[in-house]
């Protein structure tokens, strides 16, 4: 057992292109392949539904069936729907490590009143809120896939909206991370974690730079699989000169602060 936790994984089909390996069985094989013990999983098709929470029941059941803590469900909450507080309460009851809300996919203003209300509620119940900057490279998206990318300003606004909320931002690149981190107070920045999946390794060495300038404690292991090869996030770490303790912090240890 590696102890490695992938905080950024999905189950289910992607509507914009053929993606292999989206079933629970296939994801389990992928986890085995790259030695990941646990994946935080979200129901991917649900992100494109009018009520994304309709995918959450399947997600909980799939995680339960997988057993051994292989999958931890990260259900989607839509704060524009009437029952969103019940969905959040169900996530707490189910022991979800976090909840997800990608506002632009849900047609919400990223830092509007609904998202701020969700941030406050997440802070109150102690659940981190997961947001993705993007799911795919903007240059390759389907011509009809016009959903915008999350702006750094939106993350800054959300972290300022409540002094208890903790955010996990996935698929961010170096510029995004720096803009939010250095555009936040130290207290605000301490409540934001970043997954490494979109941050470049050598020769540009963006990840190495960020670990030095922002701090290793702010980063967690995420892959974006199955939309992306999980091998990439492992390779990023293999290309760094990290002590075993530093590597373990990114691969799992930093989650203690995120989820406690």
């Amino acid at each position, binding site marked *: 057992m590696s102890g490695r936790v992938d905080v950024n994984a999905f189950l289910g089909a992607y509507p914009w*292109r*053929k*993606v*292999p*390996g989206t079933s629970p069985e296939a994801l389990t094989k992928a986890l085995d*392949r790259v030695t990941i013990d646990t994946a935080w999983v979200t129901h991917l098709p649900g992100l494109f539904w009018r009520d994304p929470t309709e995918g959450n029941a399947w997600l909980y059941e799939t995680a339960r069936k997988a057993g051994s803590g292989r999958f931890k469900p990260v259900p989607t909450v839509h704060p524009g729907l009437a029952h969103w507080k019940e969905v959040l309460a169900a996530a707490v009851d189910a022991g979800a490590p976090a909840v997800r809300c990608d506002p632009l996919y849900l047609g919400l203003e990223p830092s509007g009143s609904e998202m701020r209300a969700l941030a406050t509620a997440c802070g109150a119940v102690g659940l981190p809120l997961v947001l993705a900057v993007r799911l*795919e*490279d903007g*240059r*390759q998206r389907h*011509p009809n896939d016009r959903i915008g990318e999350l702006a750094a300003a939106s993350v800054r606004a959300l972290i300022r909206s409540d002094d208890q909320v903790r955010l996990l931002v996935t698929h961010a690149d170096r510029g995004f991370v720096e803009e939010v981190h250095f555009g936040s107070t130290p207290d605000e920045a301490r409540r934001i974690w970043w997954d490494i999946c979109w941050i*470049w*390794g*050598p*020769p*540009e*060495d963006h990840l190495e730079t960020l670990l030095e300038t922002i701090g290793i404690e702010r980063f967690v292991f995420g892959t974006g*699989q*199955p*939309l*992306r*090869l999980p*091998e*990439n996030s*492992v*390779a*990023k770490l*293999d*290309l760094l000169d990290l002590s075993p303790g530093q590597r373990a912090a990114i691969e799992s240890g930093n989650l203690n602060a995120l989820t406690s």
Partner: protein
Amino acid sequence: MLVDVHAHFLHSRTPRADWHERNVSRLTAGARIGISVHVASILGSWGLTSPIYFPSPRDVTVGNDALLALQREHPDAIRGYSCVNPNYTAHARAEITRCLDAGMIGIKLAASRRADDRLLDPIAELARERRVPVLQHIWQHRRRDWPGQEASDAVELCTLARRHPDVAFILAHIGGGGDWLHSLRAVREVLNVYVDLSGSGVDGGMLEECVASVGVSRLLWGTDLTMDTGWAKLRYLELLLTKDELALVRWKNAARIFPPGAFPTD
């Protein structure tokens, strides 16, 4: 043996103050990944005194000189593409000849002129005479012009490749942005177009489509600006392919299209 067919280096007359660190980083990471040879290009002054994708003849020469110096400094690890701007035909042909005579092994065309333009014919003809491949920068399914480059896509490259069936063309960075599936469909039947797997994209399903579309004998491994993604794709290919197939992608296909003796063990 592992050949990176799409590498870049920087030099002192570029906008990057960290040019040396980036070069060292590429070589250090390459050693960790197991790269035997970096086949690299330098795009002029990388924007300092002329645009990256429209380098002036003077900057082209300066960049190629810098790459030749790196090749001399690392004779086992670095090989060069002669980067040229096809809008300056006489200079481009002279520069290719000069660089190949000095030990470079290929031609790099960035985005100074559309790939299907007749101005590329004299360069392709020289590639045939010298038996070197042409690495063509590609925007996977370009639907419009993008600022800063006269980018080409796979369809346009295939037009050129059909006019020069005896030249090996390398479609750059299939994972480098844009609709890679469009490119793979376009090049499937054009047998002198090879697909370079580099680029920051590590999309699930992309490598399977590469294999299905053009077969392992037309795939070339590379990194471009992100060596971590290159290594990830290599690791995935190790599972996807047989040992013999993997050797084709790692180096044997490259050894076949680059000049004899280009790599140490071919």
